[in-house]
């Protein structure tokens, strides 16, 4: 197979070089298999489930739908880049404490999606929360604990103001 593409991606603030790759590889594949960032998960390959949600120039996108080679001029943030040093973010802490994590496969995508939501809209209504994460399918929790985690994060941010 011709695997001779060379390019660089800006991921989590670092320039990362992609070598000997096939041009057809998705951003999801390149992040996971070439750049050592397996936190982004693949579960549908069609942009339906949101497990592979990453931020691309500040927008939440499905990495499975992005050709990696087209992302060369974008700033990409994955779940690994959401966490600063080894501490959990308030969103991550709430997910653990409110029981929003079961099998955890959808979790990285949800973490990115919730950070994206609260970054753009710090006081979302119930429906704005539901709509914002309706592109992230969770098969385990039925979403109740996920809503609780988002609400707990908002409460703690309001309390610390």
């Amino acid at each position, binding site marked *: *197979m011709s*695997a001779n593409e060379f390019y660089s991606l800006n991921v989590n603030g670092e320039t990362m070089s992609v070598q000997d790759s*096939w041009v*057809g*590889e998705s951003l999801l*594949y390149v992040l*996971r298999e070439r750049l050592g*960032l*397996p*936190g*982004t*998960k*693949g*579960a*549908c*390959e*069609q942009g*339906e*489930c949101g*497990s592979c949600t990453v931020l691309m120039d500040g927008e939440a996108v499905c990495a499975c739908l992005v050709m990696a080679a087209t992302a060369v001029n974008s700033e990409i943030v*994955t*779940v*690994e880049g959401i*966490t600063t040093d080894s501490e*959990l973010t308030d*969103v*991550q802490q709430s*997910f*653990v*404490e*409110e*029981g929003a*994590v*079961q*099998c*955890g*496969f*959808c*979790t*990285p995508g949800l*973490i990115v999606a919730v950070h994206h939501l609260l970054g753009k809209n710090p006081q979302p209504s119930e*429906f704005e*929360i*539901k*709509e914002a*994460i*309706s*592109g*992230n*399918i*969770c*098969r*385990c*929790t*039925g*979403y*109740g*604990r*996920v*809503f609780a985690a988002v609400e707990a994060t908002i409460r703690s941010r309001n309390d610390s103001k």
Partner: protein
Amino acid sequence: MAKSSLVTKPRDILGNSALRPDGAHKVQGSFEFTSDLHAENMLWGATLRSPHPYAKIVSIDTSAALALSGVQCVITADDVPGKPTYGLISSDQPVFAQDFVRYMGEPVAAVAADHPETCRRALALITVVYEVLTPLTDPEDAIAGSFAPIHPDGNVIRHQRIIRGEQSISGPIVVEGEYVIGMQDQAFLGLEAALAIPDPDGLGLHLHVATQWLHEDLTQISACLNLPADKIRLTLGGVGGAFGAREDISLQVHCCLLALKAGRPIKMQYSREESFFGHVHRHPATIFMRHHADSNGKIVKIDARFVFDGGAYTSTSPAVLINGITHTQGPYKCDNATVDGYAVRTNNPPCGAMRGFGVVQACFAHESQMDKIAAAVGKSPVEIRLINAMVTGDPLITGQIMESVAPVARCITETDAIPLPELMGQTVNELSLPGGSGLTASRSNIVRGIGWGVSMKNLMYSEGFDDYATARCTLKDGIASLKFATSEVGQGFVTLAPQIARSVLGVDEVILEPIDTQIGSAGSTSASRQTWMSGGAVDGACRLVRERLFHHVGLMHSIDPIRLVIDGTDVIDQLGTFRVSVADASEGIEISETFEHHHRATEELDENGQGNCHTAFAFVAHRAVVDVDPELGLVKVVQIATAQDVGRVLNPLSAIGQVEGGIAQGLGLAVMEEIVMKDGKVRNPSFTDYLLPTALDAPDVVAVMIEEHEPQAPLGAKGIGEPPCISVTPAIVAAIRNAIGKNIERIPVRPQDICL
């Protein structure tokens, strides 16, 4: 001066909401799922699957695929060194199809190559010549014998009757219906994945796999590879949900065969489309039920006929059938019954375990019937269920006595006491209307309905199967280590097991050793059984260790060990003042004990379906409130109220998570989830076409946990995984019927079932 208060965090013992030990890794993306595993020098494996539901294989030519640069090897049925077939109950499913393919998606060959794209191209270069045959797709043809056997074992997988009480008895009220249940997919998010690493000597291997039951996989893999079990080690890779779909073999044997042939590590992971073909589904079923009742609506007799479509291979169909027919009565008293049940073979996809395991199908039928009886005698859905509610000590239609705690009436009344949601105002957020973000519904068209569902579900395995669980506990320097082979699929056994150790041993630090086959079997993570079974094993091992610790402390301090108990994190003398911390008491010593937990014995059913076939039962009630747009056929589930018989809540956070998650899956079966079949072909193998509940579909869940400790259960707790998804489905359908006044006997309820 403000009063100072010392806030102590409650210890993470039983009854408290201990947090998942893997939670931090999961939210950071650093938890290692099986699909995240890598090995040096690794190749990728992929599977070629049949495009036909039924065909004779005339020839397979792999030469062009082998010649492709980057391809290491190609394997077919000829490369299986051991048993050519596998299966959980009957070994009737080929590792690779040899002479015939019997369902669309059946594996025919597999390749190993340097890149997933090379694999894809290599599969396209394998030429299989098929002689396409007419598939058997109607289960009734299998029963009638009107179709030539599609498998050497015949077209009927199992037939079982239940004959109980007076056969000719009837009552003034007779209601009947034929209920159709569509094929549901487990749709776990973490796709099938495995990494097989051959031993340097090529005589064995290590398989990392996402599975529900390591030891059962090991037994089946070992037979197919013709390798002794001690040459194969299985380690649980991170599992992204299971719900029954990982109980059967999928890619395990293929991955091992490729690794042994290539002499290099092989990673396999299915795509979503392949996953729809790669695992068994929930059985589609057709259930006829006729209830005879007295003029008060008390059940006199039930006649029923069950047909489960098992698809091409047996999987767990015989057990699903038995679960279905033995739950014909639901959680209600019934002395007389005539039940006929079939699980049949067709050229549809193989069906097997999914959360609820045969009882989901039975419950949709019996709960629909209860509402028909209620309507016939002029009683409410709650009244009809209360006057028929089963209690402990009642005989079942199998003759088995209900020995479990059976708070059926309490489940119903406590659900009924949960306040109904507010009526929809004239101005509402459009997203809350049926159709949601489609913005198609108009507020003025919406009608509301309320419906009920109540269920009984057996726990653990049945029919004489001893599905024991094993655990080892080691105490050293105040730290407990636990070893078990229990599959953690997301349910939270890794949270519960340390809670047990902390409660029994008075330790705070608990280490979980790798989950693998280096200890005895834990049985499957299914049948709502691991809290009871592996929980019982961990509890037993910890108690044995505690006994030896007391003996040691007694010797050291000249106290009769019988006087010693654990108090918090100390060992104390109940009759004196002696007190020593568990950490100090266990300093410098190591105590290790292994315990197997077995549940009570069960029996097979006789020819009339009589016998003590089940181990224990759990109950739950659901009340659904729905908004329906009758013109567009759209449904929004507004609220689910539920009271569940759990025995004892061991971790409130885990418990509510199971309840809410199960309800979402039952909602999916009620109104959206179905694998659509046509002539044996799957028409919607993707998340674009197979719809799953999203955050906008999630109803408000109001749950009550009914805690009446179950004396048979080692921790007093019943399994809680399956009941939430069982009776919620008929409750939602009943609410739809209630809203639109139309009888619907098929799930999932499609828009055309409502509006046409």
